[in-house]
């Protein structure tokens, strides 16, 4: 076993060495062929190409990749990243019990295509996209024109029905209709732009569409030429000109949560003697000069200048241009890579401007091209990434790749899996599943409402008109307090009759297996010797009251970094 030497290096000796070995032996039975071998067997050329390009950079920098992750670690990762929660003990055991060579492919296919996982999959990606499109707080305020429910309904339908990525983005950019489910002209996609078009001549819409779908940061060029990128103020206003026909109209008064309607209306053009067939806008340079702009896409493509919607629908034209742009596929691939690997090829992930050189430019181009060839099928792209070698590496570093740490400011080389905190939503869903609370949950809407209430404690807005916000869920004291004492953990570790721990304690499993069950449920592995011993100590402390000891052990497991991190 090559792994021994590596892992023992980190051990301190004595009893803990034995613990470490026990851990190794325990895992050896579920650890098989290296990722290298597995992935080179794989028929998909895109996966082979990812592996070739990524490992090429390792060689270039003299990095030795970490060992492959164990099947248990990999399984936990895939569940978290694809469907937003950890596996149940039963799901994990089903996977570990599969001895076939293509069990990883089978698992990925199951999570992506099996009906039993459609809801989890759609929920996860709806959450990710809602946070991106309207933020964690969008629609929470009674005065908001956003219907969070409407946004989520649209996204959930799109992900459940496998709508291709270009079609979805086209709909988000060009949508019109009501934000609110239940209205006759309901179109949930309108929630993306509804609060971004009325102020400052749709500055936020301009910035959000450019940043999210093209990876271009234009917001700074609204007022001046950007000091260190290609963007000029003129380009910003030409892009902005696409949003001059759109208005958000509130339905009902402020505060009654009546929703709103996104409508297209003619743009007459600005200035005295405006000509609607040449509908122009004016902006001011820093020097004070006034300049004019018409709709021109970032690549220089001009569209008609007529301001009448029936002549030229500027948002429709923009949507066509966006999904045809090469920035479009790169931005999508970069974001998706970042989701699974922890870092995109650029930092930040939504800045692909010429000043920000990607870590793997050829791979980014290649994957973008392949994604377009695959008709923007999101699940296909996910499959390539999830079955690649870098995704299957251990998060434990070795002496020859410890320098590969983007936290130190290095560009990522993906020679080990980068440890990261679960997102707040992932933690929530994982806790629910780990404590089997999912077996008797209410309706989907009710579940989302409860989760949203829980999430609000971690989210705070910055008090700007742009709705900037921050989620304090990155290892801060409030997060630790929530994990120590919060309602969710209190319920999870509750000793009440009929509860999770009560059922486990009084169930048929022999004592040590009960501890195993808790470790498998939270960490997708069995406890090592030291951890078993710790459990035994708790049992003795509680005068052999097993339920109390189980509660303590469960609290310990949930509060450990191994649970909180995707590793």
């Amino acid at each position, binding site marked *: 076993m090559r792994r021994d030497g590596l892992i023992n290096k980190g051990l301190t000796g004595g009893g803990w060495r034995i613990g470490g070995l026990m851990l190794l032996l325990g895992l050896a039975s579920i650890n098989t062929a290296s990722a290298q071998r597995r992935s080179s067997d794989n028929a998909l050329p895109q996966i082979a190409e990812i592996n070739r390009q990524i490992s090429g950079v390792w060689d270039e920098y003299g990095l030795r990749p970490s060992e492959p992750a164990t099947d248990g670690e990999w399984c936990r990762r895939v569940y978290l990243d694809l469907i937003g929660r950890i596996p149940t003990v039963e799901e994990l055991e089903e996977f570990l019990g599969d001895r076939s060579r293509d069990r990883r492919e089978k698992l990925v296919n199951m999570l992506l295509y099996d009906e039993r996982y459609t809801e989890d999959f759609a929920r996860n990606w709806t959450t990710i996209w809602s946070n991106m499109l309207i933020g964690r707080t969008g629609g929470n305020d009674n005065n908001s024109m956003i219907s969070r429910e409407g946004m989520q309904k649209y996204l959930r339908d799109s992900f459940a029905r496998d709508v291709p990525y270009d079609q979805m983005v086209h709909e988000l950019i060009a949508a019109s209709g009501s934000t609110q489910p239940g209205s006759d002209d309901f179109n949930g996609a309108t929630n993306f732009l509804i609060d971004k078009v009325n102020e400052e001549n749709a500055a936020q819409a301009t910035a959000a569409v450019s940043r999210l779908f093209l990876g271009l940061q234009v917001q700074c060029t609204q007022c001046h030429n950007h000091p260190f990128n290609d963007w000029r103020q003129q380009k910003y206003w030409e892009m902005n000109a696409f949003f001059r026909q759109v208005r958000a109209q509130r339905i009902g008064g402020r505060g009654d949560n009546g929703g709103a309607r996104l409508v297209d209306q003619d743009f007459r053009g600005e200035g005295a003697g405006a000509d609607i067939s040449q509908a122009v806008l004016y902006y001011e340079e820093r020097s004070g000069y006034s300049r004019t702009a018409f709709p021109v896409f970032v690549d220089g493509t001009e569209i008609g200048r007529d301001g009448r919607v029936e002549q030229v629908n500027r948002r429709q034209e923009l949507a066509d241009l966006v999904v045809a742009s090469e920035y479009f596929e790169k931005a999508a691939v970069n974001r998706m890579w970042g989701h699974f690997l922890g870092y995109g090829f650029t930092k930040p992930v939504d800045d692909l401007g010429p000043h920000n050189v990607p870590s793997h430019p050829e791979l980014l181009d290649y994957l973008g091209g392949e994604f377009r060839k695959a008709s923007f099928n999101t699940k296909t792209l996910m499959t390539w990434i999830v079955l690649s070698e870098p995704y299957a590496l251990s998060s*434990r570093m070795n002496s020859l790749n410890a320098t590969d740490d983007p936290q130190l*400011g290095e560009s990522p080389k993906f020679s080990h899996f980068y440890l990261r905190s679960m997102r707040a939503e992932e933690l929530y869903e994982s806790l629910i599943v780990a404590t089997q609370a999912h077996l008797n949950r209410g309706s989907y809407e009710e579940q989302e409402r409860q989760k949203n209430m829980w999430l609000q404690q971690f989210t705070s807005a910055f*008090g700007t008109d742009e709705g900037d916000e921050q989620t304090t869920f990155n*290892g801060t004291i409030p997060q630790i307090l929530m994990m120590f004492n919060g309602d969710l953990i209190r319920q999870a570790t509750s000793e009440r009759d009929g509860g999770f721990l009560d059922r486990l304690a009084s169930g048929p499993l022999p004592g040590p297996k009960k501890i195993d069950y808790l470790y498998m449920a939270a960490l997708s592995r069995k406890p090592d010797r030291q951890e078993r011993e710790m459990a035994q100590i708790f049992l003795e402390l509680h005068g052999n009251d097993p339920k109390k000891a189980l509660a303590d052990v469960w609290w310990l497991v949930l509060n450990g970094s191994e649970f909180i991190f995707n590793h």
Partner: protein
Amino acid sequence: MIRFSTPDGMSRRHFMRHMAGASALTGSALAMGHTLKTHASELTSRRKSAILLWMGGGPSTMDIWDLKPGSRNGGEFRPISTSGDMQISEHMPMMAKQMDKMSIVRSMSTREADHNRGRYYLHTGYVPNPNIEHPSYGSVIAHELIDQRPELEIPPFVAVGGDSVGPGFLGMAWAPFSVSSNGQVRNLDLNMDVNRLSARKLALMELEARAMQNDNRGIAVREHLEVIDKTFKLMTSPQMAAFKVADEPQAVRDRYGDNGFGNGCLMARRLVETGVPFVEVSLGGWDNHQDIFPTLRDDKLPVLDRAMSALVEDLEQRGLLQDTIIIWMGEFSRTPNINGNAGRDHWARSWSCVVGGGGLNGGIAVGETSADGTAVETDPYSAEDLMATVCQGLGISLETTFTSLNGRPMKIANSGRVIRELIS
């Protein structure tokens, strides 16, 4: 730094005694209790603190601290005289009486007019860089002043009513502790017997320390352990009473305004008294792209005026102002030009910050802007200059150098130069 016992070869019996012992210790310390130091006279050491009043959104300083009557950009408000050597807005009458203790820097000139970039820059003194995260004011100051207060059991950097910018490369142990201005800290109730909590604590610290040593997964695991340690400290600390603004007499709360920002400022005073070196209190809603004048006159300025003046007055009356620097700023200001929606847009080129206390010179206006407010006509000052001045005022050496995670030396306050007029 966290200390943990070496688990090597520890027998089960031994560990059990260890756990039982720890429980007893924590229990008795709790039972005895401590009394919260509330009298300024007990604060014998000259320890310094800072309070940042953060105005999220970018307040129009031309309508508050540097009015331009007679200019077409001047807006609707008139200037009034103050107890200091400058005039301010007529809608800040209570602050006008405190301006002998505060100074206005009217020659701020910065380049970041995007909210996120400006917030980052004003908080750190550095422009955003994708490869490095710089620590914010509170993290830097807490990090430098923590040694003065070994008795402090609650976090040294508290953000009230909104988030701040993070600790960057200093690590999560220096992250802002965010609380709402009502003083209620969520999930603080023990809901279990303290001995049981102590046993869990000890076991958790042991297991995490082991994970840190064995797993080689980077700094995140160590940071988690450090924050766990801080959380346990805070959970059993009587100093947590400092957050309870509800314990203040109603008259005091009324003086501060008894609203979110007012209670935040009051909490800042209580925290500083308890020994917290840095408190940030947020007041948002300054992103006034439309209808700026009624918004400022009827909503923002009355709240600001009452709470900020109460804070200055209260700190002074308690003898704390000479050791506490107050900073008032947002991420930028607003255009001198009034736009078509009777609002002002983002503007960073010429604007004002306010600073005072902690021995800094009060009652003066530093620098000048042009008659229409569009340009600084004196030596311009930057975010890093203001930060350097605050650090110097707090007795922190400007030679202090941090090492970022990738080994780069980073001078405190980005080598800003001290604003001489403020330090005599």
